[in-house]
Every structure is written in structure tokens, then in C-alpha cells.
């Protein structure tokens, strides 16, 4: 554990130095997209490409969740016909994609961010407003 930390160690031991918030990008309307601009606080911690790759993948996943295709229409019509009771037993497409997103974020945290002393928070926990990146203090990495 000299240079890198596992996610568990990070959560137990490290102290929070700062939090960076990646805001939403509304240029395409109200779809859930996040800005890919690289925040300056992360310059010393992570590669710009890596960061942009993460945000871009998240944006694609959210676009998939909100995609207007035949599947979403069928789901909507079916729900209307059953007086929306169908959602008591079935999960919506959106919820399925949200689960995929949660898994992706967990995986990114384990592989990429935690070893660098960063932690991504799933945007759904912040009301899909921001991606919160917690920066942990350097001293905990050099203990």
C-alpha cells in the first residue's frame, strides 16, 4: 500500500481536502449531460484524457437512458394501458440504465480514481445535478 490505496482504505483513513463539482451541460436541452471541461483542481491528480473519457461515457449512458426510441414508446404506451400499474412489477428502462451507471462508477472508482486519491459520487445521489469528485488529502497517500 505504499503508493496506491484501495477504495476501502481511502474511505476509512483519508481526510477530505476538497470537492469538485462537475456541473450539467444544457446546450442540448434538458437532457442529462455533464460538462467535460477539465477542472483545474484535478490537474495534479489525474490525466485529462482519463477524466474526459469517464465523463463522456457517463454522458453516453445518460443519453441511452433518455433515448426516445421505439422501446421507450412501447413502454410508455403499455404503462398507460395498464393504468401505470405495470411499474409495480417491472423496472423502467431508465432505472436499468441507472444501475449500469452505478456499476460503471463503482468500477471507475476502484480502478482509476481511488488509486489517485479521488472518489466519484454517483450523480443520482445529488439529484442528477452534479458529479461530485472528492479529493482526498495527499498526506494520507504518503503515510
Amino acid at each position, binding site marked *: 500500500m505504499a503508493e496506491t490505496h484501495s477504495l476501502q482504505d*481511502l474511505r476509512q483513513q483519508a481526510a477530505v481536502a476538497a470537492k469538485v463539482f462537475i456541473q450539467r451541460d444544457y446546450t442540448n436541452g434538458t437532457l442529462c449531460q455533464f460538462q467535460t471541461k477539465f477542472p483545474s483542481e484535478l490537474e495534479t491528480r489525474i490525466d485529462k484524457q482519463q477524466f474526459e473519457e469517464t465523463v463522456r461515457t457517463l454522458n453516453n449512458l445518460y443519453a441511452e437512458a433518455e433515448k426516445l426510441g421505439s422501446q421507450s*414508446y412501447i413502454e410508455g404506451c403499455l404503462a398507460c394501458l395498464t393504468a*401505470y400499474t405495470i411499474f409495480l412489477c417491472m423496472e423502467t428502462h431508465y432505472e436499468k440504465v441507472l444501475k449500469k451507471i452505478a456499476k460503471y462508477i463503482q468500477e471507475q472508482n476502484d480502478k482509476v480514481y481511488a488509486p489517485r486519491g479521488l472518489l466519484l459520487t454517483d450523480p443520482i445521489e*445529488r439529484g442528477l445535478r452534479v458529479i461530485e469528485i*472528492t479529493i482526498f488529502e495527499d498526506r494520507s497517500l504518503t503515510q
Partner: protein
Amino acid sequence: MKNCEYQQIDPRALSVSPLSAQSHTEKKDQRPRRKWEVFPGKNRFFCDGRLILARQSGVLPLTLGLIVVTCGLFFAFDCPFLVKHLTVFIPVIGAALFVFVVISLLRTSFTDPGILPRATPDEAADIERQIDTSGSSTYRPPPRTKEILINQQVVKLKYCFTCKMFRPPRTSHCSLCDNCVERFDHHCPWVGNCVGKRNYRFFYSFIISLSFLTSFIFGCVIAHITLRSQAGKSLVQAIQESPASVVELVICFFSIWSILGLSGFHTYLVASNLTTNEDIKGSWSGKRGSEESGNPYSYNNIITNCCVTLCGPVPPSLIDRRGFVPPDEVIPAASSASEMELPHFSAKNDVNMCTQSTKDVLERMVNSGSQTLCSPGTPKTTPLVQELPGTAAPSPEPPPSAGCPGLLDSRCPFFSRSSEKDSLHSINPAFRLASPSPSLTRTAVTLNGAADVGFMPLHPGSARDEAP
């Protein structure tokens, strides 16, 4: 579990009255609470957070009552006659419409309309930092706006002072519910809830099916009275035989005008992908005649607009009503944040008792040795408490875990949640070096892997009173 040495002080030896005032909150605090219980908006929750309603339910009982009474009268007095003289499908269709109307109404009323959770203190601080507030001499700063481009059109985002965030486009703050609601349409008193992104389709199906229902009942009642008066009797006699029909007629007559009008209006809104709010304010109408100010959200195709609004995908509720409040979470913008804080485990009882007992000692210490309090952010514990070697330098940061309460619980017997202001101060680097006020505040404990935990002095029941 008890690693702190000061537990040797018997709390029962002290006066009980401060504890009894707290016993109410303590009892409640001993079980993990769900997020709906600490929700800051003006809403009511039923079925353990599954159903949500505005605090002012408006005339929802009246709406339900009118529908149920009218349909009841219809089935009881008109249907027997009509089944005999016309067809048996009349009550069948009536029943189907009635069920659909009631389900749509209940769904509209009890669904989260798309409430946005309020910004966490960290987020709010981050946004504040980005806003240029230099030179503002008034107490309340001027409305903050941010301009963005949506589909090559300039849209202004307003800052919400209550929720402490810039409202996403098409979001509006409902003053009745005290929440920001996505794609806010209007607050409907008939339905007792806001109509927003997540329940607009239920509202629309409610008013459409209600128009069908009222028209259907109206038509059937007219047919009933006509048939009765055709059989050799006068109209007055027919009415006397079936007085309930007149009641239904009157109700339906007045409802039809308003409901049909509303349905037509909302059909127009759906087809052009507008909200009532935008339409009333004239956001996209040709006010600025020379400019191209069309609706940037419209797909310019009626069918697509309808499909998107009524059948499009919808996110799950963002406020996560039934989730549990994690022990290190601070409640954003709650007015009585200190009273709602709670740890995740049962040792809170001990914590409070311990704090009461140490409070006197600590206050004496504070008065005598204030230099110990001026170290970066951390009021030091009393000599009674075994101090954590590593916590001398850093400020008391709240534990970093956003989702790891279990781990913290197992490692930390004494744990207290930080108040929202504390976490704001401890996390924000600009505030880290400022010492907290000598009034003893709740601060979180930093773990660094050592078995012993330094205990920060607590002052239960008082929130730090600082302006953001």
C-alpha cells in the same frame, strides 16, 4: 465499545432535566431514519415514504368526492333504467372510465412531480465561490442569473435561494410546496400536488379521461331523461321520478366546460412541448418580434412532441424518499438541522450522556485555556479523553465516506454527525484555518486507523448560527 475514559462520570449524578428534554429526539434517533422524514420541503408522506403529497392538499378530497358521488348516483339511479332500455355496456364503459379516472387522479396526486433535492452545503459553497458577489451592499443580493445556450438560443437560468442552486432549464420553484420541480407545469389544487415532469402524463390522462367520463355521464343522463319523458310523461314528471339525474346533470354541465377547456389547452401544450408556466409567462412567444425566439425544447413535430411528453422515459424520483439517512450526511437547508441529526447506531444515548457530563468540564476548560481551541479547526478534548495521536494537526473533517456508514460504525464507537455548517467549514479549504467559535459544537471524528478515537466536545441541541 466504550473506549472513552470519561464514561466513568456517572451521568445520573448530574441533573436529569437537560436529558429529558432530549429524550424525545433520542428515542426517535435510535433507529435509522429514512430520508422522507427529514425532507425539507412542504410535503406529506404516506406509507413510509412511498406516497408523496403537498402539505396543502387543496381540494383533492372535493375532487375525489365529486367524482365518486356523481358516478355513484349514475350507477345507482341511471344505469338500471338504461340497461333495461338500451344496452348493458353502459355501466361497463362507465365503470372502466371511472376506474381509469380515479387511478390517474391518485397517481397524479401521490407521485413525486420531479422534485429536485436541495444542494448539499458543499455544492452551495462551490456555487457561491463561482458567483461574483463583489460590491453588493444590499442585504439580499440581487437575483443571480446565468445565461446558457440551448439549441442556439439564449436561456437564463435563475439561482434558487431556497435550494441553493441554479435551477435547470424549465425548472421552477413552487412556493406552496417549497421545492424546485423539474419541468414545472403548475401547482394544481384539485389534485393537491404540483404537476411536473414525472406526473404530467398522469395529469393529462386524468383530465382526458375525466372529460370522457363527464361527457359520457352527461350523455347518458340526457338519454335517460329523454327516454323517460318519451313514454307518455312530461319532462317534469320524468325528473321527479329520477331526481338524482338532475344533480348529475348540474355537476356534469359545469364540469364539462372547465374540463374540456383544460383538456384542449393541455393538448395544445403537449403538442408544442410547452408548460403552463412557460405559456403564462410568454417565455417563447413572439414578444421580441424580430428575434427568433421559438421554443428551444420543441422538436417541431407534433407527433414527436406528444410522444416525448406522454410516453418518453422518466427518471425515478430524485429525492430517494425511502433511502436511509447515512450517518455522515448533512441535511441541506433544513431549518432545524441540529435537531434532526443522528448517528447510525445506538450509542448515541451514551454519547449524549457523556457530552452532558463533559460539558461542564469543557466549558471550564474553554474559559481557561482558549489557545487549545485555536488550533486549526479542532477544539481539543478534555484530559479525560484519550487523545488520538494523529488528530492534533488536521481540522475535524467529517469522515469522507459518502456511502460507507457500516464501516464507520464498526470502527467508531463514539461518533457524532457534524452540523451542516461544520462540514462546510471543515471541507472548504478557505475555512479550514479558521477556528470554530468557542461555543462547543458538534464535530465529526476523523479516523486514521487507530483504535482509539478522540472525542470532540459536543454541544447537543444547538446549531452553529452562521450566515452562509
